């Protein structure tokens, strides 16, 4: 099953299981007409929207307060910035500010993933910004199984969830155990290893796995961990992995400064300093806007080449 099929399967199951689950869609992403949800569930529950991200995201929050379970598809992550008010000031805070009286079961779907030609305004990677909003769950699947598991959990969650969907993963295929009960979501160890832990986020997961496979041929044993949930972070699984390997590379296709990779490194530095045999490394976007040209974008993306170089560096 492909990544997109797995994600859409989870949405379909949620829509079938509860009349209260609705889809409010923008351009691209699961809300788009080609997703087929409109045909399957009708325009009452699958809403084509005017281009007003703050308006329709805010309406979704109000609807969630009254018992609906909306999935809001912003399309490109950049467009979500127009909806910062309802996402950060309303959805993430209403439970807290009401002393726990209200829940806001809404899923915000956003597409990330660097691709040549899209230019900086269509290439924002906002996962770290979203992690700065306590009250909001931030998930970022890195595998087809994760795409399914995390969308199932997100649509079952009583908390607001931002679902960070790396479009570069869409062609990925894998085993997806579907149709099961929603279970607690934790980080996954995707490949066991002894020498280095690579914690890879979202679109960087297949790259990390390919680097691990390649280096295995040289006798370097790389453990690959997919955190799956960026906030709250499953720190335990990451620390347990570093306890086995003693070395850490954190990879995220987001900006370097105050980023997700930095949070993972900080966690290990603070809570697992004695486990480390070498200084950890981050592989991220080096604090530059995303250029559209193919040679420039290659330089700033957390590619296999850069991940491999970081693994070799921590082994030096």
């Amino acid at each position, binding site marked *: 099953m492909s990544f997109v099929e797995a994600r859409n399967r989870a949405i379909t199951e949620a829509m079938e299981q509860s009349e*209260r689950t609705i889809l409010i869609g923008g351009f691209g992403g699961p809300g788009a007409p080609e997703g087929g949800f409109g045909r399957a569930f009708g325009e009452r529950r699958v809403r084509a929207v005017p281009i007003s991200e703050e308006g329709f995201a805010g*309406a979704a929050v109000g609807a969630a*307060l*009254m018992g609906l379970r909306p999935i809001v598809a912003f399309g490109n992550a950049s467009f979500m910035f127009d909806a910062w008010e309802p996402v950060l000031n309303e959805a993430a805070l209403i439970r807290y*500010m009401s002393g726990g009286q*209200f829940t806001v079961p809404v899923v915000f779907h956003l597409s990330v993933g660097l691709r040549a030609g899209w230019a900086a305004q269509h290439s924002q990677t906002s996962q770290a910004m979203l992690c700065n909003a306590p009250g909001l769950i931030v998930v970022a699947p890195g595998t087809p199984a994760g795409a399914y598991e995390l969308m199932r959990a997100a649509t*079952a969650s009583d908390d607001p969830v931002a679902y960070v969907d790396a479009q570069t993963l869409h062609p990925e295929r894998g085993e997806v155990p579907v149709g099961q009960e929603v279970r607690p979501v934790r980080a996954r160890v995707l490949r066991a290893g002894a020498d280095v832990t690579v914690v890879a986020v979202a679109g960087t997961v297949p790259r990390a796995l390919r680097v691990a496979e390649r280096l295995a041929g040289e006798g370097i044993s790389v453990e690959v961990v997919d955190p799956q949930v960026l906030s709250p972070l499953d720190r335990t699984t990451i620390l347990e992995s570093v306890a086995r390997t003693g070395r850490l590379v954190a990879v995220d296709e987001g900006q370097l400064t105050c980023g997700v990779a930095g949070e993972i490194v900080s966690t290990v530095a603070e809570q697992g300093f004695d486990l480390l045999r070498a200084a950890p490394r981050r592989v991220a976007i080096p604090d530059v806007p995303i250029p559209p040209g193919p040679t420039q974008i290659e330089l700033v993306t957390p590619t296999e080449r850069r991940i491999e170089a970081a693994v070799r560096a921590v082994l030096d």
Partner: protein
Amino acid sequence: MSIPRDQLLPLFTSMLLMRRVEERVCELGPKEVFGNYHVYIGQEATGACVIAQLQPEDPVFSTHRCHAHALARGISVEEVMAELLLRGTGASKGKGGTQHIMSRERLTFATSIVGGSTLLATGAALAAQVMDAPWIGVAFLGDRSLAEGVVPEVFNLAGLWELPVLYVCENNAAGAPYDPRRRSNLSLAELTDLPRTYGIAVAAVDATDPAEVYPVAVDLVERVRRDRRPAFLEARTPPWPGRSGGENPSLAVTGATDLRLAWDPPAEDPMAAWHRADPLLRMVRLVLESGVATHEELLRRDREVQDRVERATDAARRASFPPAEDAFAHIFAGGELWPR
């Protein structure tokens, strides 16, 4: 149609309670009410008349100016006062404060982000439509919120999707002459021009006169409930003189309200303009003209309300702040679904 006889005393009492709580807030001042507070003095007819038409299942979305709406929805004076003083016994367990008096039981929300109430109420109306539920969404908003981009966004959604939502725009800058450009920073001849453009039913009232607000509130709430389409009410009041730019409001200018002014105005009154525009004094006159109560009965009721506010204030002062470690509570709904 004016105010039905059996509604006169309940409305008077509702407005009086709002007034006495807000006056007490002004007396407590920023030392006891942490942070900036926004009072509702002069606007009471709107909240009392509109909320009296609502059902318990109609969600109400208020703003930073939420104390009176909370009271009209039936959140107790004790819970309101305790929340104002950030006590654990407050409506929002001391996690909201003056701008966020909320109650699940009373379906009352408050957001301090200008325009935010319109978003949430529109969504509540969407939920009613999708679920075939009977409620209507109700948003209170201020005149200046119409300058926020999100307000025409939700007007567009509400008009496009035909959502059962009532927007109650409390224009508390509507002195004479009426001039949204100068008084509200809005390039509109009338506030109702904006929602009307989106096909939303509109009405404007002089909200210093409860007898004018009441029938329009009845009509608009009935229309939204029956036709399942949006409506917009502009409730016009002049600014209360105790509200001065930047500072927290106080009673320094007006003093506390003396109900006797309604039937015994002084020959020389430096506050005559405010007293003419005071909806509470106008409500007193409506009650007296109808004969449903005497001066003495109104004054006795006033003493009862003031006593209740005083007892609630005392109780709030005696109550504890919530435990410090509660700073970590209420962030997530919890459960084992997500890591901790």
